[in-house]
């Protein structure tokens, strides 16, 4: 059975007061992950087809074609995993 960890290589909590969280997708799964996320989240804006500004469950985030996503205002790891599971699985 697929899990979030099948798609995610690493999660980095950023340094700074914004407390952004950066999700780095596994290299060989990044395209699939981005496709799945784009199918479920609402696209608000895109730049040159490489940066996607999206919202899902009132949480805004950006996905980069390089295979990284940046989430804001995430309370904790459980909340992030719950959102990723809903987006990816």
């Amino acid at each position, binding site marked *: 059975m697929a899990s979030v960890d099948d798609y995610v290589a690493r999660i980095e909590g950023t*340094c*700074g*007061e914004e407390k*952004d969280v*950066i999700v780095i997708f596994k290299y060989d799964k990044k395209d699939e992950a981005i496709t799945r996320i784009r199918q479920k989240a609402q696209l608000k804006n895109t730049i040159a087809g*490489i*940066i996607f500004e999206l919202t899902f469950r009132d949480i805004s985030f*950006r996905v980069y074609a390089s295979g990284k996503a*940046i989430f804001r205002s995430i309370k904790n790891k459980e909340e992030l995993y719950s959102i990723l599971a809903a987006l990816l699985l």
Partner: protein
Amino acid sequence: MDPYRIREDFPILKRKINGNPLIYFDNAATTQKPRQVIEAIKDFYENHNGNVHRAVHTLSLEATELYEKARENIARFINARDSAEIVFVRGTTEAINLVAYSWGMGNLEKGDEVLMSLMEHHSNIVPWDIVSKIKGFTVKYAKVHDDGTLDYADFESKFTSKTKIACLSQVSNVSGVVNDVKRIAKVAHDHGTLMLVDGAQSVPHMKVDVRDADIDFLAFSGHKMLGPTGIGVLYGKKELLEKMNPFQGGGEMIKEVAFRQDKERCDISWNDPPWKFEAGTPNICGGIALNAAVKYLEQIGMDEVLKHERMLTKYALEKMQTCCNRVAVYGPSELTSKCGIIPFTVDGLSSHDVALFCDNYGIMIRSGFHCAQPLHQVFKLQSSARASFYIYNTREEVDRFIEVLKEIERL
């Protein structure tokens, strides 16, 4: 100096990131390595690998010769009086921890004061804070002006008869501000106070002369000056190092460990500096590779290194201020008081967004607090993006960076 010629020595600069040529602007965090340093590492492990000191076989003697020659050359590089004043450590952080624990534990008591500035890297703040909680002394912080420059009047006014050591970075890792450590060292010594300089962002970029500035301790990292990670230097005046207790215990740092049957314990005598502070097998290859890095920089000339970085900084600052509408740059406007580090923000975007966007185009910059949260409080910033330059960066790379910043402004 010719950065285009220099670039040929750096294999990694041929990489493409997300289909774009790699532009490496995160040099304040770590620098890339030239072939000469990579070859020095390869040569050591292929031809000379042995443990240093206390062995008589050929490989050990060769390794010892290379390791101690590196120490001598690095001593000359910063104009130390004696190679015994060069202690190899893991990096700047370990060097400052060594002084805080070894000198601080032995010399600081309740009522004493340690003086530093609000622009310090956490690696200069935290070790002193930890030891202060053990020994009960006070850490005082001098102010920084709104443009990131040191408030010299405030720093100098905070020296008292209780101040035992002043700790100051020579170059801020956030703003690139260059501090006059010679001036502060003079004031410190007039008050009978020692002077520790965090040279992590200065030694790789400019000529640092410990005797001219009369610095008591200088800490710097190899990986920020073309060397490998895991190697750095603590310079300390010999007479100070001789009086200090060891930082860690183990092999190499002792002269003798003699078991006394009558007392049921070991009588231990310390080795001389610098080995007294190098417990266990040191990073032999790291020291040798750092020497290769120093030789590489010396061939270019440290004045040329600084000149090139200031040229790029001036060029980038002008472009950022004229071509971008939502970009705010922090730090002093006077170029002579700063190095090749530019902190900035893009209105409406987090620094991490900016860094991720740049990464998408193959441009590596830093985002966050850069381990200097107090200075971000001075700038009233939640975090910042930071571009930092080195010898292999070019004006064309700055042009590309500006193009990408303009793209970011469309977000």
